[in-house]
């Protein structure tokens, strides 16, 4: 191994690069860094699994309206372990969004986005947008009824924008209807454009994280702690100390992913039928708040909300939380605002999930209408003897 390294070093003079890398990965992390700081590592693992499973799925997947559904069926029922690969890819897509949101919450609470790490945060929000883009484009690929009609509904919303709306929609779906052209476009974006964007942004994000080190809890107008100060304060080097923690979380993330894929395999519905609209079409859970919001506000407002929210998120370190404080205990107002906004988005998601469904709660059957409002369908029946006697 050493000889191989020397062979390359002699020719390419790699030693300075090696020293730079070692210097950066050995930078100590502050003492307050705990297990919550390993969520980013879990994300790297999950995204890598998505890449591998995605490449394996590409071997058998056929991105045409005529063949897509049948190829997914073949992957599920005929290709050896195809069901496991697809299930892992499917569950991975959900876990990535959950872990990415948790990671973002963690960074926000610890003020890790503040000066001089604003760019890391902005790149992180862009990564979240890319992840959501993967979810949006990947949803259509199985070409079953839910995928087809979910995409029809989702792509109809931008059409309501004034002037550019119809052109945007046509550009997105490659025509006036969701069809073969749409599948082709979504597939290319999903397997080519977005992976490049993801790799580029992820690389930049990681370089920035390592180059600037993990943020301390000091005020931004105080000097950043030196490595010596971090050591003295109980901090450990990122490598190998914190890296081992990161690796442990990666193993657990892998365990959770494989468990879900093994025990709850992905399903496929009925093949897409452009002439038959099924009932209760809904997008993926992470788009439910946006889907539900569209029912309450004018479309032009609702459609602009999700990109606006991402823009606001990007502006957090530049215009929203610009106080020099990092410690969460001294940023209570801004954290309360974050929590209230998150709770509202969560509530919208719950209402979106409940809308157009029926549920029995404490014996009473409710039907939740399009707006998510409950209506009693069947009153609770008293089951006790006393109740019957009455």
């Amino acid at each position: 191994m050493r000889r191989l390294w020397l062979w390359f070093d002699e020719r390419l003079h790699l030693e300075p690069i090696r020293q730079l890398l070692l210097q950066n990965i050995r930078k100590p992390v502050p003492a307050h860094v705990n297990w919550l700081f390993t969520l980013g590592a879990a994300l790297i693992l999950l995204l890598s699994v998505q890449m591998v499973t995605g490449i394996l799925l590409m071997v058998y997947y056929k991105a045409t309206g005529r063949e897509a559904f049948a190829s997914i069926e073949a992957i599920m029922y005929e290709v050896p372990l195809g069901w496991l690969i697809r299930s892992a890819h499917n569950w991975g897509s959900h876990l990535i969004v959950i872990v990415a949101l948790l990671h973002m919450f963690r960074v926000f609470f610890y003020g890790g986005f503040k000066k001089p790490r604003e760019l890391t945060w902005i790149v992180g929000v862009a990564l979240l947008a890319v992840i959501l883009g993967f979810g949006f484009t990947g949803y259509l690929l199985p070409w079953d009824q839910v995928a087809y009609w979910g995409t029809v509904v989702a792509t109809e919303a931008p059409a309501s924008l004034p002037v550019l709306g119809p052109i945007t929609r046509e550009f997105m779906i490659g025509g006036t209807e969701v069809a073969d052209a749409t599948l082709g476009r979504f597939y290319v974006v999903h397997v080519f454009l977005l992976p490049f964007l993801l790799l580029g942004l992820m690389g930049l994000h990681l370089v920035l994280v390592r180059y600037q080190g993990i943020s301390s809890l000091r005020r931004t107008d105080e000097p950043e702690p030196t490595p010596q100060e971090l050591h003295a304060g109980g901090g450990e080097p990122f490598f190998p100390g914190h890296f081992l923690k990161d690796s442990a979380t990666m193993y657990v993330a892998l365990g959770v992913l494989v468990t879900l894929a093994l025990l709850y395999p992905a399903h496929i519905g009925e093949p897409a039928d452009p002439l038959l609209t099924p009932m209760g079409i809904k997008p993926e859970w992470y788009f439910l708040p946006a889907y539900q919001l569209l029912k309450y506000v004018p479309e032009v407002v609702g459609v602009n909300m999700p990109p606006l929210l991402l823009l606001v998120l990007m502006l957090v370190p530049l215009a929203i939380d610009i106080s020099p404080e990092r410690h969460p205990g001294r940023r209570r107002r801004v954290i309360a605002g974050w929590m209230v906004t998150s709770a509202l988005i969560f509530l919208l998601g719950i209402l979106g999930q409940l809308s157009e469904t029926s549920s029995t709660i404490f014996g009473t059957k409710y039907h939740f209408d399009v707006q998510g409002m409950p209506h009693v369908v069947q009153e609770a029946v008293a089951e006790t003897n006393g109740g019957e006697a009455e």
Partner: protein
Amino acid sequence: MMRFLLLVILSMAAVVSAQDDVTTPPGQVPLDDVWCTVCHFEQGDKFALSVHYQRGMLLCTDCHGGDPFEPETEKAKAAETGFIGKPARADIVAVCSQCHTGPAEFFALGPHTDATDPDNPTCVTCHQNHLVVDATLTLMDTTCAVCHGDDKAIGQRVQRIQRSLRDAEQSLHSVRARFDSLQQFDAALGRSAGVLMGAAAVLRQVDARTHALDEELIDTAIADFEVEVEAVDKLLNASEQSRRRRHWAVAGVWLFVVANVTLMWVKRRQM
């Protein structure tokens, strides 16, 4: 926790939401929009509670013809609307058989087929006309006894038919429950849903044959049904076996995870 959350949402929603007509099922036309019920309100009230309205998505016009959305009586009952009014006694089976072809076919083979005999029942004698409820086996407890109350032999025959059908229903119910619970864990099982549907279809044939009240005919159909159930059973057993294997695989995965995490933990402690 989920229940609590739902309760909170429900309480909040209750403040802002007014309750609308609770008897109109989702997707069905409100009976207030059906002009027939303005005069025939008693029939309308019964029909609102029937399975035909609640689940069948039917309206007055499906049995009586006419245009239920036309406010003018003459136009609503015009010949071109296919209005037939109250079907004649002899036509009742034909009206019901527009949808219930199987029961009608076997009813014709049974002892009650002569509609000209006023002592013979028609479909609505047992199933009612406007307030049509789910056709369950208990229906026979009351309806047969109306005419054959004193006849022991008929009573015993009814009980035997009920027992056979109840057993078959129970057996379908139990394989269906097993199928549903296993389906969420086994993607391949979804592809075999047709086998279960086949068993259910055969049981519907058994139900249809009940209308002939011929025990031999029912027994033959039940034997066919049992073959179908056995096929479903085989599938479910294989699925359960695969699920057990997957549980072992999960155990293996976690053993691997725990071993690696422990190794890292030991390494960290040694540093």
